[in-house]
C-alpha cells in the first residue's frame, strides 16, 4: 500500500515512534521484574510469567480484533470491525498523525500489552496460569479495547472533549479498578491476613521500577505521535512529575515511620509516572511538578489503608494505577493550559467545562472497568477453576504451574532424558 497523494509521512515522527514503541514494549518485562520482586521466592517465575503472558495473548488478540474495536470509527461505545484481522493497516498514515498506520498499530499494541500485564498484580500467588491466560486474552479485548476507544479512538469521552494524553482512562484507571474486581472474584491468598507475606527481592523491585520509568518516556513521549510540541512537553513532564512524587513519598515515609523505604521509592516512581500519564502533553512543567507532589498523597493513603482490609489486591494496582490515574485525570481538569497544549484550558484558566468532562471520565472509566472485569471473571470461573488449591499455593506456583524454580541449585537433580542419547555418552577430551 502506498500513501495517498497529499498525505505526508514524516520521517522524524516515524523514527521517534518506532523507538517509542520499543521503549513501551520494555515496560512489560520491567513490570514482570517489579512484580516478581514483590512476591515470595517460590512464586517468582509464575508472577513474571503473568506479564510475559500478556506479550503473547494481548498482542495476538490486538491484531485479530482489539485494535479494530479500539480505533475503527464504529460508534461512541465501541469501534467497528473495519481493521479486524489487520485489514487496511499499511504504510498510509493514520489520520491525525504523520506516521504509517503500521507504526500506530504497533505503538498502541504495546499499551494494550502492558495494561493487561498490570491487572495480574491483583491475583499473583494464587491464580491458575491457564485461567489467567483466558482472562488476559478476553480482558484485553472486552475491557482494554473498549476503554481505549472511549479515550483515544474517537469514542464518546474523546468526542465530548475529555483530555487523556497517554491513557489515564484505559491504562491506569482501567487496570486499577479491574484489579480490584479481580482480587474480589479470585479471592485472597491462602495465608493472607494470617502470615506476613513479604517481598523476596527488593533489588528486582527497584530495577523494575527504574526500567518502567525509562519505558514511560516512550509511553508518554510517544503519545503525541511525533516530535512536535505535545511529545516534547510530555517527555520532560515524565521526568519532572515522578521526581516530585519520589520526594514527597520520602517525606511521607519519614513522617510515618522515621525511615525512607526502598519499596516505597519504587512505588513512588511508578505512581509519579501514572499521575502524569493523562496530563503529560497538556500541562505546564510547573504544574506537572505540582501534580507529582500533591498526587502522592491519595495513593499513599490507599497503600496504607488497603492491607488493613480483607481485600487481597496483592500488589496494590488500585493504589498505584487506579488512584493515581484518577488523580491525574481530575488534576488535568484544573490546570490544563491552552498556551501549552493548544487545545483547551482547565478550571484555573477559566474553563470549568473541562473539569466536568474530566470528572465524567473519572466516574465512567472505573465503573466500566470494575463491572466488566467482575462479570468476565465470574463467567470464566464457571468454566475453569480460577484458584490453585491450598496445597499448590503452599508448594509454590513456580513448581506447580510451570515445573520450574527461580532459584534452583541443581543439587539432587537426576537427569531423566539421558536415554534419548544413542550409544555411550561421549566423554570430554582433556
Amino acid at each position, binding site marked *: 500500500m502506498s500513501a495517498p497523494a497529499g498525505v505526508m509521512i514524516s520521517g522524524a515522527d516515524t523514527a521517534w515512534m518506532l523507538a517509542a514503541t520499543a521503549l513501551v514494549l520494555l515496560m512489560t518485562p520491567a513490570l514482570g521484574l517489579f512484580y516478581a520482586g514483590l512476591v515470595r521466592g517460590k512464586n517468582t517465575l509464575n508472577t513474571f510469567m503473568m506479564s510475559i503472558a500478556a506479550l503473547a495473548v494481548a498482542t495476538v488478540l490486538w491484531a485479530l480484533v482489539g485494535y479494530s474495536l479500539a480505533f475503527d470509527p464504529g460508534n461512541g461505545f465501541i469501534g467497528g470491525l473495519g481493521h479486524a484481522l489487520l485489514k487496511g493497516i499499511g504504510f498510509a498514515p493514520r489520520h491525525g498523525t504523520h506516521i504509517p498506520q503500521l507504526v500506530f498499530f504497533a505503538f498502541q499494541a504495546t499499551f494494550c500489552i502492558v495494561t493487561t500485564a498490570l491487572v495480574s498484580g491483583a491475583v499473583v500467588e494464587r491464580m491458575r496460569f491457564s485461567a489467567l491466560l483466558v482472562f488476559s486474552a478476553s480482558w484485553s479485548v472486552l475491557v482494554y479495547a473498549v476503554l481505549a476507544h472511549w479515550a483515544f479512538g474517537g469514542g464518546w469521552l474523546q468526542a465530548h472533549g475529555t483530555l487523556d494524553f497517554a491513557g489515564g482512562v484505559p491504562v491506569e484507571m482501567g487496570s486499577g479498578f479491574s484489579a480490584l474486581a479481580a482480587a474480589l472474584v479470585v479471592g485472597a491468598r491462602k*495465608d493472607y491476613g*494470617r*502470615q506476613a507475606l513479604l517481598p523476596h527481592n527488593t533489588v528486582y523491585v527497584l530495577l523494575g521500577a527504574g526500567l518502567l520509568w525509562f519505558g514511560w518516556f516512550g509511553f508518554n513521549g510517544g503519545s503525541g505521535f511525533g516530535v512536535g510540541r505535545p511529545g516534547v512537553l510530555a517527555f520532560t513532564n515524565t521526568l519532572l512529575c515522578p521526581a516530585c512524587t519520589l520526594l514527597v513519598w520520602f517525606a511521607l515515609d519519614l513522617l510515618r515511620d522515621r525511615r525512607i523505604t526502598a519499596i516505597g521509592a519504587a512505588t513512588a516512581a511508578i505512581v509519579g509516572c501514572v499521575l502524569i500519564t493523562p496530563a503529560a502533553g497538556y500541562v505546564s512543567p510547573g504544574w506537572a511538578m505540582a501534580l507529582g507532589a500533591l498526587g502522592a498523597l491519595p495513593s499513599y493513603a490507599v497503600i496504607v489503608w488497603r492491607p488493613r482490609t480483607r481485600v487481597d489486591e496483592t500488589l496494590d494496582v488500585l493504589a498505584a494505577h487506579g488512584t493515581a490515574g484518577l488523580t491525574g485525570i481530575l488534576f488535568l481538569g484544573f490546570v490544563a493550559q491552552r498556551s501549552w497544549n493548544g487545545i483547551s484550558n482547565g478550571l484555573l484558566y477559566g474553563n470549568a467545562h473541562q473539569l466536568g468532562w474530566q470528572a465524567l471520565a473519572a466516574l465512567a472509566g472505573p465503573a466500566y472497568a470494575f463491572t466488566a472485569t467482575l462479570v468476565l471473571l465470574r463467567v470464566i470461573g464457571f468454566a475453569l477453576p480460577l484458584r490453585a488449591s491450598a*496445597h499448590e499455593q*503452599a*508448594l509454590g506456583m513456580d*513448581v506447580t504451574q510451570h*515445573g*520450574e*524454580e527461580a532459584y*534452583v541449585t*541443581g*543439587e*539432587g*537433580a*537426576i*537427569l*531423566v*532424558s539421558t536415554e534419548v542419547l544413542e550409544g555411550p555418552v561421549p566423554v570430554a577430551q582433556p
Partner: protein
Amino acid sequence: MKLVTAIVRPEKVNDVLEALYRAEVRGFSLSRVQGHGGELDRVETYRGTTVKMGLSEKVRFEVAVSDDFVQRTIDALCAGGRTGEVGDGKIFVTPLERAVRIRTGETDEGAVTPLQA
C-alpha cells in the same frame, strides 16, 4: 534432657512455630535443609533438559528440652507439621549429655529451661 530434631515442610513452618508457642516451648533453632524421605520426585524441565528433583526443601527444628517436656514438644511438632500427605517429615529424639547457657554458665536442666521474662 533430650534433643528433639524435627524435619518439616517449609510451608508448615509458621504452623509449627505457632504450635510450639502454644505448648510453651520457647527455645529452639531452625535451619533450611535439603533431603529425601520417600516422597514423589518432582519432574522439572529446563529447555531440553528434564530432571527429577531428588531432594526436597525442608526445615529442621532443633529443640533441647528437659525430659518432662519431650512429649509436649513432639505433640506440638506433629500438630503443626502434619498435612497427611507423604513428605510431612520426621522427628528424632536423642539423649543429650550436657547443655550450657553461655551467658550465665548454668548447665543442664537450668540451661534448657527458658527464662520467665
